[in-house]
């Protein structure tokens, strides 16, 4: 039979009238799409290799290249779309699990797009953040029910009876998600780490360990303890600002991780504490956590190991039972819970899992926050939402639904150049992000990366301030869980109920 070509998803169209044959495109494409023929002086492009990452388009000095979708299509069919057909063709050839990268790309309802924000009119002045203070400072950690002190009454004479449990202090409620050195390049890690430190937020090691070149940024790192325990040692724990036990990830709930041996370079091997060239396999569950009481033991083991001076949190994927699970985690002693929604990203996951398992973060946050409040334990742990924050408004909505802070992953990578081509798992990221190939990683100059990631934090923080100001609020804590500021548009009663918001058109 005729062998089907792999789906030619993109076309790199070359405008010959603009092309000066500088061959920059040839040199930079890691997928070898472009080639130069010395004999004829012609440039050729093999579109079937194109990942649609736009690197060549961006590097071309004359704008001669345009990446666009390949229009070749299968017969229109609402069920048997081209995407599904080619997935089957690929699997017929390789007989394996189809891998993919980044977050879920299926058109599940995005509730952020069905929620609108409030603004002050007449009865309440909006606040201009350019003229008035506007506070985004956020603390992650367990808060006591009430303050305990002695010497009350005399102004300035208050003495705390005990320090509050450990907190991490953020200048803005935005942090960088767990992305390991391994899943992304060291330069990408450095970019995010530096940006986080410069801005006063936190970044997260993922389960990749902490490379020595990242030590300068370790006072703002949340280190992960994941099922593979990669890179976990006393020094790792001591350096961190906070600890996060990773139980699950939104992109692949219930699935472990797999960093293929060819990516386990010398540097990664040292950082992860595994032999170079061996596969780094994270088991699906923690084999010492088969129940909530096991989790409690690990939480307290980590607290013991770090002298109770760092918050210890737990990250879970947003699944059906997320609210009661979160409640259990808080009662197990976690100082914060991270909930990663179905749109959360990954360096590699089976497409079938990524696209079908989990629930949207909006619903998960609403459910968890409400549940914890009903149980009167909402103050005992911070709630960090993760998974698919595309704009500052998404963040504002998540906070109003009840999140203390959010983790951003995909959008942070986009600030570093990522065009969400979803080919992270190939290791050939042209932007130098999801790759360990030294030829590619050098493309991400961490100075630029840090600047751009910082800019994103800055820009979003400014926008959050604008939105807060519009609502007449000048501190983010007055937005947190303040669902009165939200209204649903086009949502069913049940959806509104779960989100705990009114429909647009309803006043207070």
């Amino acid at each position, binding site marked *: 039979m005729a062998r089907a070509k792999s789906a030619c998803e993109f076309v790199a169209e070359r405008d010959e009238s603009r092309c000066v044959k500088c061959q920059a495109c040839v040199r930079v494409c890691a997928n070898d799409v472009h080639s130069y023929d010395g004999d004829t002086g012609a440039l050729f492009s093999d579109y079937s290799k194109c990942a649609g990452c736009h690197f060549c388009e961006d590097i071309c000095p004359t704008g001669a290249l345009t990446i666009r979708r390949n229009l070749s299509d299968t017969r229109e069919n609402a069920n048997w779309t081209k995407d599904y057909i080619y997935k089957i063709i690929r699997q017929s050839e390789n007989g394996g699990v189809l891998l993919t990268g980044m977050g879920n790309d299926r058109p599940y309802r995005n509730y952020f797009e069905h929620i609108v924000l409030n603004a*002050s009119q*007449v*009865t*309440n*002045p909006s*606040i201009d953040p350019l003229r*008035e*203070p506007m*506070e985004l*400072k956020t*603390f992650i950690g367990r*808060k*006591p029910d*009430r*303050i305990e*002190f002695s010497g*009350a*009454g005399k*102004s*300035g004479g*208050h*003495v*705390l009876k005990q*320090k*509050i449990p450990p*907190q991490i202090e953020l200048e803005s409620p935005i942090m960088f998600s767990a992305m390991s050195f391994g899943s992304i390049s060291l330069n990408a890690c450095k970019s995010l780490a530096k940006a986080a430190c410069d801005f006063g937020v936190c970044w997260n090691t993922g389960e990749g360990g902490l490379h020595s070149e990242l030590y300068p940024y370790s006072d703002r790192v949340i280190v992960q303890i994941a099922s593979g325990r990669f890179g976990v040692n006393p020094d790792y724990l001591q350096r961190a600002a906070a600890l996060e036990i990773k139980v699950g990830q939104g992109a692949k709930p219930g699935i472990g991780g797999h960093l293929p041996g060819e990516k386990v370079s010398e540097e990664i091997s040292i950082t992860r504490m595994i032999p170079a060239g061996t596969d780094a396999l994270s088991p699906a569950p923690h084999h010492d956590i088969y129940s909530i009481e096991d989790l409690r033991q690990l939480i307290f083991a980590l607290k013991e190991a770090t002298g109770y001076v760092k918050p210890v949190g737990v990250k879970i994927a947003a699944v059906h039972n997320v609210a009661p699970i979160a409640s259990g985690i808080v009662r197990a002693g976690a100082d914060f819970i991270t909930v990663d929604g179905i749109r959360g990203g990954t360096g590699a996951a089976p497409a079938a899992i990524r696209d079908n398992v989990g629930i949207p973060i909006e619903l998960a946050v609403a459910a968890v926050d409400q549940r914890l*409040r009903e149980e*009167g334990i*909402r*103050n005992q742990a911070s709630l960090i939402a993760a998974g698919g924050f595309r704009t500052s408004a998404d963040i504002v909505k998540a906070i*109003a639904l009840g999140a203390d802070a959010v983790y951003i992953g995909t959008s942070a990578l986009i600030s570093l150049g990522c065009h969400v081509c979803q080919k992270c798992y190939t290791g050939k990221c042209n932007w130098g992000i999801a790759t360990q190939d030294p030829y590619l990683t050098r493309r991400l100059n961490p100075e630029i990366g840090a600047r751009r990631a910082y800019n994103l934090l800055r820009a979003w923080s400014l926008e959050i301030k604008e939105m807060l100001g519009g*609502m*007449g*609020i*000048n*501190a983010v*804590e*007055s*937005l*947190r*869980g*303040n*669902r*009165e*500021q939200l209204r649903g548009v086009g949502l069913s009663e049940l959806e509104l109920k779960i989100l705990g918001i009114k429909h647009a058109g*309803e*006043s*207070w």
Partner: protein
Amino acid sequence: MEYGQLKERERSGRVPSGCGVSGIMNRTGKVFSGDGILASICSMTERGNGLGSGYAGYGIYPEYADNWCFHIMYDERKARELVEEYIESRFEVVNEEPIPTRKVDALKYVPLLFRYFLNVKNGFAPESAAEEDYVIKTAMDINRNFKGACVFSSGKNMGIFKGVGNPGEIGEFYRIEDYKGYIWTAHNRFPTNTVGWWGGAHPFGILDWSVVHNGEISSYGINRRYLENAGYYCTFFTDTEVITYLFDLLGRKHKLDFELIGKILAAPFWSEIEREKDERNREFLKTLRIIYSSALINGPFAIIVANSTAMVGLNDRIKLRPLVAAEKGEFIYLASEESAIRLICENPDNVWMPDAGQPVIAKLKG
């Protein structure tokens, strides 16, 4: 729309309002007539639209000083019967009478108004918080579960008088000038809807807390959820209600003084906290803000809060609503407008504009 529907609407949702407030206190506890507060609040005509006014007086029931006094409004006789049955099941009723009123033609839909002087039945230990919780629970139960009934005052030796009408009409209706108290606060309401419900007027009170409030709270959603987490049920859906409960939670339950409550409700900015030189104090302020972040009241407000021991004026952290304070001898005055003070106190010793977030605290001496 029927009154009942209007009332339901107001009971089930927040009605933002802009208002005038006024308060007078004699710090030695010497009682004085309600004339002054009446004149003061009536002078601020621009700050109301006739859709709600009210007064709170402290020290007005000296003969029942040790009894809980409930002021309850009923839509109908039936409601009264059910509520009274419930009250009798929980309290020993020392006295029960209609609240004395005058007929004022302008007032429509006047509800049935009664007051009850009560003792708890099962003999709680004096000073016990549990007794107060019991009282709150009773009031909240009535407000949540008894249709057509509303407890609008539930303290000791104090009372709240309020209704739909301008301050002059309401003052005349309740015969405010007949009472003598050492603290008076008053409110003139400018709600942004068509008609008010008597229960929705200010002051709002629980136990002997009363709050008059000018403003709109943008943090309402989280303040309310925070209070719910702490066991308070908001039944009136007003900003004033959450402010009152916050005072009760922080002042009565967490035993924080007004100074600290001010630092929670109108928290200093982080930049101010960082400027605090004393490290211990800085740490304290930081911790206070971290723990009580959900109690921060965000949005414009000027409030006058009173209980039997103090009257406190407080502005939001960037002073978006007016509040003026004055002092003459043992008298302290607070009002939205200076003229409302000067009208009743021609030559104050001192007049000032309290800074944003800085409470004016007048405490009862002795």
